């Protein structure tokens, strides 16, 4: 049996020597990095650099692709997530994920939010209602939808849908939220709302966000990791990365010389 204890130690994720292959193609090469509690870690890099692959490895969603192989360790609160005793279902309730394209279920707003709690055995209507309200409030969506909780989620705007997905993720009270380019399908106003939300959420959660926008990374993150061709080139405080990068390639990328 696994025992994931949310201890007081500040390191949430400790990635050590992580390699990943799609069949024969190596997508991640010897990644070493640590993600700390209540920080926003931005992961940047050109398309195909492995940033999406990396974030999907953190909750083992990448294993849905059958040809994927990994080596190395990812320790989540000290426990290797690739360990046999680690139950992927448990890991994923601790580590929520928000996707590139808003992907609510074609059900009501309420049903969407309580999906997680429900499938994990919470049936009490009153508790589910409380979860819905608190999750939607945390996702800054409650005031907009409180009168139409039983309407279909696809009636919401794109930005609202994405915040609903965040609320759905918060409903199981995770510890970490992984975001895979969460604003790339949204307009600037919806994007800024999500960014504000991330800023508030980091008080309670640890957030990792993949983004193709360097401005976004600079605006919202505490730490930034720069990936290039499957390698972690540089990982440091966001301020350092954007003002005084150590690696020439990081500088080339953030100054827009490629990518």
């Amino acid at each position, binding site marked *: 049996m696994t025992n994931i204890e949310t201890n007081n130690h500040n390191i949430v994720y400790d990635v050590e020597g992580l390699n990943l292959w799609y069949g024969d193609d190596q997508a991640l090469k010897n990644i070493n990095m640590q993600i700390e509690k209540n920080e926003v870690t931005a992961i940047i890099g050109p398309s195909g650099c492995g940033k999406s692959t990396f974030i999907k490895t953190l*909750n083992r*969603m990448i294993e*849905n692709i*059958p040809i994927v192989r990994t080596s190395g360790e990812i320790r989540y609160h000290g426990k290797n997530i690739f360990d046999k005793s680690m139950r*992927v*279902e*448990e*890991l*994923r*309730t601790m580590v*929520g*994920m928000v*996707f590139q*394209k808003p*992907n*609510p*279920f*074609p*059900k009501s707003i309420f049903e969407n939010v309580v*999906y*997680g709690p429900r*499938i*994990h055995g919470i049936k009490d209507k009153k508790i589910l209602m409380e979860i819905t309200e608190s999750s939607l409030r945390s996702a800054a969506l409650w005031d907009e939808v409180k009168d139409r909780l039983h309407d279909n989620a*696809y009636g919401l705007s794109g930005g609202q849908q994405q915040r609903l*997905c965040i609320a*759905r*993720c918060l409903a*199981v009270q995770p510890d970490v939220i992984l975001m895979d380019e969460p604003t790339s399908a949204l307009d600037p106003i919806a994007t800024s709302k999500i960014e504000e939300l991330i800023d508030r959420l980091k008080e309670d959660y640890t957030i990792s966000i993949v983004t193709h926008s360097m401005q976004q990374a600079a605006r919202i993150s505490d730490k930034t990791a720069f990936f290039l061709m499957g390698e972690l080139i540089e990982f440091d405080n966001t301020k350092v990365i954007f003002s005084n990068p150590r690696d020439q390639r990081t500088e080339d990328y953030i100054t827009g010389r490629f990518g």
Partner: protein
Amino acid sequence: MMDFNTIGQKTFNLSTKGVKKVNTYKIKIDHDRINRRIKLNNISKVVFSLSTVFALIVLAILLYRIGVQSYGWLNFKFLTKNLSIFPEKAGIYGAIIGTVGLMLIVIPVTLVLGVATAIYLEEYATRGKMQAFIKINISNLASVPSVIFGLLGLTVFSRMLNLGSSILAGGLTMSLLVLPIVVVSSQEAIKAVPNFLREASYAMGANKWTTVRKVVLPVAIPGILTGSILALSRAIGETAPLVVLGIPTLILRIPKTIMDDFTALPIQIYYWTLDTVLTAEYANLAAATIVVLLLVLFIMNSFAIVIRNKFQKRF
């Protein structure tokens, strides 16, 4: 007005590396030929459209003929009376009950088998030899003539399992016959469920079965239903397998259980058509039964179309 002929006589100057070459193209436009081509095109358009309409005309004649022949024979009495050797007294109540009985077997059997098979192929099977084998199998099964299914039913259900020519034997035979349709249409419906919904579910810590049950199936159900209704309408109209099972010619008793002998709408049409040699009025009875059968099929198909249109393109 410019003369089109002159367009073809333009002179092109193409210079390459200082060497001045003058190529002169003379294209003579043959108006007669163009007119011929356009005429041919227009004639063929008419011929092609007539071919398409031909099918419609036949359909119209077929419906008209059957309507005329059934006129005066199709009434409430016809639907509620049982078979009789006297055409004026004969009704199809027994055949209706038989067809309903068949459906009561076919619906649960094909839904369970068909949807489960589709779920296995789309959600569980890894893309390997096993999946390919089952897929080829199903597509081949779909092309096996229905009369062969009759032979299978006769051997396995009627003789080996001793079910005779009961509703159960007929229903099971029909189920195997339409199973490929249900499987393929359910597969299509499951395939059409966008992958991002599955991802959303897995990311919430759901396992595969929960994801299938709570996310995939609810979204796929309209498609599955549409396909199942079409499969069912195929089963309602099929005759050959039932004839092969040896359904008796004249059944005067209304079936009470699924173990009873029975007759069904298409069977009744078949026997009445054969017997028109003896009694001309049987053709009217056959036509009247066809009207009933076609109406049932029409209602079912409309239902399928309504479901399809209502749930199309939700993402």
